[in-house]
C-alpha cells in the first residue's frame, strides 16, 4: 500500500528577483512501513523536498499525497500526521525533555495524565527514562536528537520525516544511532523518510533509496534494496550497493564540473 506519494513536485524559489529551480518534477512512492532514504549531494534539494512533504514549504507545482483513513489525501500544510525531526532538532529549550514530548499531545488536547503516560512510553523507547526532567541544555547532542525523535513520534504520525539526524554525530556514535533508529522503526512499525548525504546511512537502513542530482534537484534513480536485516557492511550486496550509489552520486559530480567549464 502506498503511504506517501510525491507526484510531479516542483519547487521554485524567488531570490532577489531571480528564480532558482530547487526541485524539478519529483515523483516517487513510499510504501507503508517502509524505510526510505533520500540521498544526494548538497544542493540537490533533498532538505527542500522533505520540507515540502512536511508542509513547511508549498510545492510550486505537483502534489504530495498522504494515505489517511483509507485514501490518499493531498497535503497543503504542516501537521502532526507527519512527524518531523529537524537537523538542529529544535527542542523547546524552556521545556524539559518530557514536556517537549508532550507538546504535540497538548495540541491534540490530551489530558495531563494521558500525556504523561505517553511521554513515559516514548522516553523508554528512546532509552531516556530517568532523563525526562532534564532541560535540553542539560542533555548531550545525541540525547537531544532522541528526544526530538520521541517528540515527533508522540503524536502517532503516519510518517516520520528525518532531516540529516546524524549530521552532527561522530562516526562511531553515528553507527550506534543507525541501529537505534532501526530498532525504533521496527518497534513502532512506522513509515520513515530519511534525508541524508551519507551513503552508508542509506544502504544500511533503507528499503528504498531515492537518489537526487543537483541543479535543479531531480530524481536520478529510485532503487529498491531488499537485503534482510541486520545488514552486514562487508556483505557482497552491501558493497555493491554502496559502489552503485557512489557512482550515481559521484559520476554526476564529473558531469557537473564538465558543464561548468
Amino acid at each position, binding site marked *: 500500500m502506498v503511504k506517501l506519494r510525491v507526484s510531479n513536485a516542483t519547487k521554485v524559489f524567488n531570490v532577489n528577483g531571480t528564480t532558482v529551480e530547487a526541485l524539478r518534477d519529483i515523483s516517487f512512492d513510499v510504501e507503508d512501513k517502509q524505510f526510505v532514504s533520500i540521498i544526494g549531494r548538497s544542493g540537490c534539494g533533498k532538505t527542500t523536498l522533505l520540507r515540502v512533504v*512536511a*508542509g*513547511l514549504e508549498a510545492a510550486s507545482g505537483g502534489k504530495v499525497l498522504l494515505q489517511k483513513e483509507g485514501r490518499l489525501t493531498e497535503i497543503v*500544510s*504542516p*501537521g*502532526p500526521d*507527519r*512527524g*518531523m525531526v*529537524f537537523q*538542529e532538532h*529544535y*527542542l*523547546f*529549550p*524552556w*521545556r*524539559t525533555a518530557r514536556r517537549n514530548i508532550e*507538546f*504535540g499531545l*497538548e*495540541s*491534540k488536547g490530551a489530558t495531563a495524565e494521558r500525556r504523561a503516560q505517553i511521554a513515559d512510553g516514548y522516553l523508554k523507547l528512546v532509552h531516556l527514562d530517568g532523563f525526562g526532567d*532534564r*532541560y*535540553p*541544555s*542539560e*542533555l*548531550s*547532542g*545525541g*540525547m537531544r*536528537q*532522541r528526544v526530538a525523535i520521541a*517528540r*515527533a513520534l508522540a*503524536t502517532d504520525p503516519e510518517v516520520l520525516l528525518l532531516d540529516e539526524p546524524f549530521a552532527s*554525530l561522530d562516526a562511531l*556514535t553515528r553507527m*550506534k*544511532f543507525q541501529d*537505534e533508529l532501526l530498532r525504533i522503526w521496527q518497534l513502532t512499525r512506522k513509515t520513515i523518510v530519511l534525508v541524508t548525504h551519507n551513503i552508508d546511512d542509506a544502504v544500511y537502513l533503507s528499503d528504498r533509496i531515492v537518489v537526487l542530482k543537483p541543479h535543479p534537484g531531480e530524481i536520478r534513480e529510485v532503487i529498491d534494496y531488499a537485503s534482510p536485516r541486520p545488514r552486514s557492511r562487508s556483505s557482497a550486496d552491501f558493497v555493491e550497493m554502496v559502489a552503485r550509489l557512489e557512482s550515481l552520486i559521484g559520476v554526476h559530480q564529473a558531469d557537473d564540473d564538465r558543464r561548468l567549464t
Partner: protein
Amino acid sequence: MTPRLRRQIVAVALFLLLWQGLVWLIYRGSSEGHLLPSPFEVLAAAKELIASGELARHTTQSLLRVLIGLAIAIGLAVPLGLVIGWFPAARDMGEVLIDTFRPIPPLAWIPLAVLWFGLSPASAIFIIVVGGFFPTLVSTVAGVRGVDRGLLEAAYTLGSLGSIDLFRRVVLPAALPSIMTGVRISAGLAWMSVVAAEMIAIDSGLGYMILNARQIFRPDIVVTGMAVIGVIGYAMDRFLFWCEQRIFSWRRSGRAEATI
C-alpha cells in the same frame, strides 16, 4: 563566605574609609557645618530619620509609586512589543516612533506631567511610566523578533496552528528572557525617574526628602537619602536578577554530558 562576597565587602569598606579620610582631610577636626557629611554623621541622620518614621514613610511612598508606574509601563509595553515584534507592518510603523520617543529623557516629560496632572502623585507615576516603558518595549520587540524560526516550524509540525496557541506556547516563552532583561532595565530607570519626579512634582517620597533637606540645610539628610536610593536600587536589581535565574533555570547548561 565566597571570594566574590569578600571582595564586595572589601570594596564597600574601602569606599567608606576613603570617604571618611576625605572628610577628615577637608575639615581637620572642626565639627560643625560640614557640607560633606562624614559616614558617621550620615549614620546618625539615618537613625534620626528611622526613629521619627520619616525615612520609612518617604521610602514607602517612592516604592509604591515605582510599583504602580512599573506595572502600568510593563502592562502597556509587553503587549505592544509583542504586536510590533510579530507583524512586519507594525514593526515598520512602530520602530520609527519608538526610536524618536526613546531619546527623550523622562525628565523632559515633567513639565507636561505637571500641566496635565498638577503637583500630585499622578505626575510622578506618569514620569515613571514614561521612564519604564521603553526598555521593556524595545526588549520585547527584540525578543519576539529573535524567536528561532525553527522552533516555530517545529510547533507547526506538532499541530500548533492557531496564532494564539503559537504565541502562548512558543513565542512568549521564547521571548521571555529578553522581556525579563527589559523589565530589569525598566525598573532601574523607573527608580531613577521617581526620585527626579518627586523633586519637582510632589511633596513626599525620597526625592522630596532630599530636596527639602537642602532647603533646611541638612546635607547629612541629603546623603542619607541618596544612600537609601542607591541601596534600594541595588536590592531591586539583585532581586529581579535572582528571579530571572529562577525562572530561566533551563538556560543553565552542562549538567550532564552523557553518551547517546
